[in-house]
């Protein structure tokens, strides 16, 4: 039996003057003990709603969920004694110091003040916040806030950790730092459910990825399995001038085994049967048609390709570029 299990979760909202939104539309999920599962999907796919149901913040309209056999809907108080949650908005008290925030959380877990103090000290150390621990959080950088928030989720050393877009909005360096922390937690055997819209993040941290779109899991597997399911090699051409897009699209369509797609405005990708041969012919064709290339190469499918294939649209903000190029 999986450590964390969600079955057929449905949650609908009715915004004023708008049709019903099915935030969760029969979402099911299984997370084995000691593993990291990533929920991967664009904004509005239902990732945060899933986490909110599992962390007892909202009740689904229907469906069920258990954590280590405890029914999340029937026994939320017991669930709250075994989870830690850290969200994309660092939920810390701005006016309290880092240390005071952790103390407060420990006290609210009813650890007793001696244990709460000891644990806060440990976490400050672990998250490298010793220097800032006695300053109010309002003076912290974005990365430090996330760290203190994540530390708050770890106060009781929970067996299950929920990380809702832990690195959204962070600069690359802070992101890398947070990834290293999460990796060290995972190596200790904590069961983690992570949501992210960054394919790279899921690829790096997760044992298993559930791709979700419109409130449902549309695919799941390891990063490699998902990439393999899309299959084969790709040829990618980056043009110098965006106006050459149509020409490149035509060339790739003739040599590829699928529909060419554009990412980032100027890079066109198509699945091919024989990578090296296809690459040679498309470069030759581009040269013959006078299309200036910035870059040309073969690549393995990425999770971006997986997402695109499964949902028909690109993850993250590149939505617009596909729209305009199509």
């Amino acid at each position, binding site marked *: 039996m999986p450590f964390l299990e969600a079955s057929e979760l449905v949650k609908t909202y009715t915004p004023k003057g708008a049709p019903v939104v099915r935030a969760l539309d029969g979402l099911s999920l299984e997370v084995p003990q000691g593993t990291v599962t990533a929920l991967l999907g664009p904004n509005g796919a239902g990732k945060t709603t899933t986490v909110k149901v599992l962390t007892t913040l909202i009740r689904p309209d229907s469906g069920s969920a258990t954590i280590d056999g405890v029914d999340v809907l029937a026994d939320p108080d017991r669930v709250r004694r075994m989870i830690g949650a850290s969200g994309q908005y660092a939920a810390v008290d701005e006016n309290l110091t880092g240390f005071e925030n952790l103390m407060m959380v420990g006290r*609210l*877990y009813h650890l007793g003040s001696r244990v709460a103090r000891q644990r806060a000290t440990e976490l400050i150390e672990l998250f490298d916040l010793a220097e800032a621990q006695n300053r109010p959080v309002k003076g912290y950088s974005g990365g430090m806030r996330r760290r203190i928030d994540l530390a708050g989720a770890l106060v009781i050393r929970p067996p299950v950790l929920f990380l809702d877009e832990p690195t959204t909005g962070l600069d690359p360096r802070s992101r890398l730092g947070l990834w290293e922390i999460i990796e060290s937690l995972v190596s200790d055997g904590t069961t983690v459910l992570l949501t992210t819209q960054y394919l790279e993040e899921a690829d790096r941290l997760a044992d298993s990825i559930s791709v979700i779109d419109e409130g449902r899991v549309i695919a799941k597997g390891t990063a490699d399995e998902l990439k393999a399911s899309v299959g084969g090699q790709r040829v990618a051409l980056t043009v110098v001038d965006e106006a050459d897009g149509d020409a490149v699209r035509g060339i790739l369509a003739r040599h590829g085994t699928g529909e060419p797609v554009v990412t980032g405005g100027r890079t066109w990708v198509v699945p091919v049967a024989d990578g090296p041969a296809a690459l040679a012919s498309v470069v030759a064709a581009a040269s013959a048609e006078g299309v200036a290339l910035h870059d040309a190469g073969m690549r393995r499918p990425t999770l971006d390709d997986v997402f695109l294939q499964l949902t028909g649209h690109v993850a993250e903000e590149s939505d617009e570029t596909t729209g305009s190029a199509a």
Partner: protein
Amino acid sequence: MSTIGSGRATGTTAPESDSGAHGTLEPAPGSAISRFLSDGWVTTWRNLMKIIRVPEILLFTMIQPIMFVLLFTYVFGAAIDIPGDGYTSFLMAGIFAQTVVFGSTYSGSAMAQDLKDGIIDRFRTLPMSGAAVLVGRTNGDLAINALSMIVMMITGWIVGWRVNSSLPEFLAGVALLLLFAYAFSWVMAYLGMAVKSPEIINNASFLILFPITFISNAFVPSERLPEPLRVFAEWNPVSALVQSARELFGNVPPGTPVGDAWPAQNPIATVLIGVVVLLLVFVPLSIRKFATLSR
């Protein structure tokens, strides 16, 4: 919970790193009541720290009543003729009432702000009492109000306000003012959670508070108001609060006619009934609202 503990035994790697090595921390033993009290204290402490760390709150809390005492005493005091000890004595109960009612609006904006910041979400994933969060918040208002009462009394004393009653009556008057404001904090806390926007709740509170504090006997005797306003003022619970405080501080001007409405005749009973009704309605309503609240 033992299954969780045994599950955690997998943490054999990374000895100096943390998390798994010692198993999940269990709560210290304690009864449900002691936990509730502890949660209430921790959240009250959090709100008191906010008063200490955000000097603007304290500054405005202190300056506004001082300004009101001085403005009303010297600007209106000259124009409004009150028999007996004069306008300052008459005014002070009104300023007290207005200030503590205004002070109780912090709960509205603070709940909305905490919701927006995600702190409510954090609290709600903890095995703590939701009601305690509201108790802590309304206690914060109580602390602010108690502080501003002290500042106002000192200011009032300087400009000539005197208590003409016994110590028990004086203390009863102070308690009644704080109690009414405390009950009103629960109303504002509920509205803050319902509206969810700190900006909207701030502006909306002024739309409610100005009429209910000004269309009352707080600043002018209500019998001098035009008829419809006079009726409103006589039934206005803030008038009952002001009248109660005036009576308990011995500041009722001699020969003041008392309105015919029941609240005007029985101000202290009216305030107590008002407090009970507000608490009976808004405490359960707020607790229920909190239990489903999320960002």
